[in-house]
């Protein structure tokens, strides 16, 4: 067998988004040797695209805000399907995580008193999102990227080599998580540039690979969002929780076609954007009709949770009241002057002007739902982010499940990355310090290597581009924003069919930076994700958050008690129901009983939370 590149580390972080970088910082500060692996260049991960901000109840703008309020908002947003403990940790720790970034050089927008400014966002009771214009994700990534460099510079001074103890392996795709004797032993992958294979040996692996958007036809996610981490975890024996919940962002660009799916930040609505459509007069009262909700009348209508907005837009479009390209109009020029728009939403202005030739200070944007975020993900222990069932495996960020329940509030993801990224870093470090290392067997390496070689050895097989397109068509039409049992059944069958055909994918050209080859691997992951989503969705006979069943409209408190756990048996995904842990008394008491009645069963209310 040809000799492959080998590395040995204490902790391997797959993913250089917000979660991965935060985890890596923590692990390095615990004095461990850390490898960060990512598919694109360092600093380009999906997190750069986040715009609106990071939610943390610092109370800088409204001092009534605190973690309890944030916790409540998060649970409400997730329709109480969240893992209470994750929501609690998240609400409690986000402010510290934001402040910490400042000590690493982040420059958030300021309040008059010189504190970090916070803005309103859908579903958050108080202005809560720390932000930098509309490029908060970029600030997060860059700050942590530079923090990693700072750590490397310290190492350089101490050990003479900057990359001795923490190194970024950019443009390297992980294809397999390797286990020996039931525990983590390392990962296997290939350099995208050369196609050369690499083995990393380590007792702990942190998955921080982000989302699954590329499974769908219209998405705000980049090519990286192929659910690699979800699939890697499944194959390594971990579980995915609640994969039926996907967030469709209500306001993605729908025109021109080349920018389909790209997100219009929710803060456009937060800053006073008005949704209008062709048929109705351009006045706000008319527009607001879409998401008038009796319970929520106190809040400006543009700030309702995004799933409600998404569904409202969808039904408007289905009712034939949309624009000719299947969207609706979103207008900021009505309430704000051109200068204010350019100052508060600079990159939005830029984006529309340069990508679509639309000047949002003068005209409306054309928007519609786009697949944006996956709530479901790897089942983890809340406190350590350890993946359930696989010693040595951890997961944080979008790839982890449970935190957001059935729907994520805007801004809660960036703070999630920081809070659980750090926790995963701590969890992994503690594990790694105690773990006994088991070398990867040559036979495991050989198997992983053969899998990479396989598509090259086939000729005249399936084309990965067209299979991907077929899959996206199925998910978009049958597992999309509004679902029915019959359609899901069809989807499951057709996904299985594509999976069969995908075993016969062949690629043209060599290994050297070959996107066709790269896609062949991503495709396999997306298929597993789609299967898990469809199979979870068909079981959940209710509509909740990011899962809408046309045949089962409305929430059902019985279903709230259930998580859907996906696991992989080597050939197919199996989904089973698992009871959601009950909310402990002290958290239960944070809510008004009348509110809880909307979500919990009478039995649960009678118990009044677990002790």
């Amino acid at each position: 067998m040809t000799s492959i590149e080998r590395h040995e580390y204490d902790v391997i972080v797959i993913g250089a988004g917000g979660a991965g970088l935060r985890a890596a910082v923590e692990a390095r500060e615990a004095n461990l040797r850390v490898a960060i692996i990512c598919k694109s260049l360092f600093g380009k991960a999906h997190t750069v695209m986040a715009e609106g901000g990071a939610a943390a109840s610092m109370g800088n703008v409204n001092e009534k805000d605190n973690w309890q309020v944030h916790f409540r908002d998060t649970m409400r947003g997730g329709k109480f399907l969240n893992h209470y403990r994750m929501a609690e940790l998240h609400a409690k720790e986000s402010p510290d995580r934001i402040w910490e970034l400042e000590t690493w050089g982040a420059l958030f927008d300021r309040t008059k008193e010189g504190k970090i400014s916070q803005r309103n966002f859908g579903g958050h009771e108080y202005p809560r999102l720390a932000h930098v214009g509309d490029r908060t994700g970029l600030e997060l990534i860059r700050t942590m990227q530079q923090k990693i460099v700072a750590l490397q510079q310290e190492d350089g001074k101490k050990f003479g080599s900057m990359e001795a103890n923490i190194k970024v392996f950019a443009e390297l795709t992980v294809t397999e998580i390797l286990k020996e004797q039931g525990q983590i032993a390392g990962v296997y992958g290939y350099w995208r540039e050369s196609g050369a294979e690499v083995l990393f040996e380590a007792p702990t692996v942190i998955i921080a690979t982000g989302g699954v958007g590329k499974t769908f036809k219209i998405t705000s996610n980049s090519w990286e969002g192929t659910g690699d981490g979800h699939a890697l975890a499944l194959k390594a024996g971990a579980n995915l929780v609640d994969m039926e919940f996907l967030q469709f962002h209500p306001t993605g660009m729908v025109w021109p076609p080349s920018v389909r799916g790209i997100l219009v930040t929710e803060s456009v609505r937060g800053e006073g954007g008005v949704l209008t459509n062709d048929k109705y007069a351009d006045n706000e009262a008319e527009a607001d009709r879409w998401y008038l909700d009796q319970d929520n009348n106190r809040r400006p209508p543009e700030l309702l949770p995004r799933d409600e907005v998404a569904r409202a837009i969808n039904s408007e479009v289905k009712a034939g009241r949309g624009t000719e390209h299947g969207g609706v109009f979103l207008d900021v020029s009505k309430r704000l002057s051109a200068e204010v728009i350019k100052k508060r939403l600079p990159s939005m202005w830029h984006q529309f002007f340069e990508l679509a030739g639309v000047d949002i200070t003068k005209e409306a944007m054309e928007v519609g739902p786009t697949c944006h975020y996956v709530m479901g993900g790897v089942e983890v222990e809340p406190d350590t982010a350890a993946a359930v069932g696989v010693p040595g495996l951890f997961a944080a960020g979008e790839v982890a499940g449970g935190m957001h329940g059935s729907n994520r509030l805007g801004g809660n993801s960036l703070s999630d990355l920081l809070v659980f990224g750090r926790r995963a870093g701590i969890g992994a470090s503690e594990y790694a310090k105690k773990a006994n290392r088991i070398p990867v067997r040559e036979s495991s390496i050989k198997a992983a290597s053969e899998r990479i070689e396989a598509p090259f050895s086939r000729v005249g097989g399936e084309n990965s581009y067209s299979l991907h397109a077929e899959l996206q068509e199925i998910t978009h039409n049958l597992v999309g924003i509004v679902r029915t049992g019959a359609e899901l059944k069809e989807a499951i069958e057709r996904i299985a069919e594509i999976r069969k055909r995908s075993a016969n994918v062949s690629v043209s050209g060599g290994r050297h930076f070959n996107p066709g080859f790269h896609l062949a691997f991503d495709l396999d992951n997306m298929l597993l994700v789609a299967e898990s989503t469809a199979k979870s969705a068909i079981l959940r006979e209710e509509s909740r958050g990011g899962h809408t069943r046309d045949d089962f409209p409305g929430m059902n408190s019985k279903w709230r008690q259930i998580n859907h756990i996906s696991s992989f048996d080597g050939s197919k995904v199996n989904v089973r129901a698992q009871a959601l842990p009950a909310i402990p008394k002290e958290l239960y008491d944070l809510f008004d009983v009348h509110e809880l009645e909307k979500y919990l069963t009478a039995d649960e209310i009678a118990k009044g939370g677990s002790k």
Partner: protein
Amino acid sequence: MARNLNMRIWRGNATDGGLENVVVEANEGEVVLDVIHRVQATQMGDLAVRWNCKAGKCGSCSMEINGRPRLACMTQISSFAEEETITVTPLRAFPVIKDLVTDVSFNYRKAMEVPAYAHPTNLAPGEARMEQVDVERSQEFRKCIECFLCQDTCHVIRDHEENKKSFAGPRFFIRIAELDMHPLDTLRNRKQTAQTEHGLGMCNITKCCSEVCPEHIRITDNAIIPMKERVVDVKYDPLAWLGSKIFKREGIV
């Protein structure tokens, strides 16, 4: 309305390569990256190109389009004349890897050479107070998406490979300026090292970096020239130097 577009795409690797002609369909509203993807999906399955966000936010899709360093995802087809042939090549200041993908590791090495932000040791997290007017200058530089187009176009390294050793490039001049203007940064020798370590003096302020920056960061006017002036303060101007010694603080005059 779909139309046929004539393109020349550079294909090759470190040892050899050249421009290849293709005809590809282009639709209304599309950008160069869209048609490259179409070429990839229909004619050249192994055409290498970097991209991520397709929204001008990540700075991955940098290439040269009709000889100009640009983001492919932000270059609209409609900005070219109907009959024009669009030529795309990889960045020409960096080693080519394959097709439109270049080795930009130079930039990551340079990033590691700029000393990190140094937070005041007596300020705990959450205690920092900074006014908006004080952070705004640095915030402009933090808009940088690291597309490295400025680095690519800068003649100091584009035309003189040997200068890569001693020249950090405009991307890192704005980084240095960002830190030197940061209201809380405690490292005080950034001006000196900008000149001695990072090659600020090599820049002849010809502004190509500012011309190509997709974030419209005013690199030369707001970072390089102010840094050059700050360097004069500490290195070349005896009066400013004297002032700073007498009053024991920077920026007194």
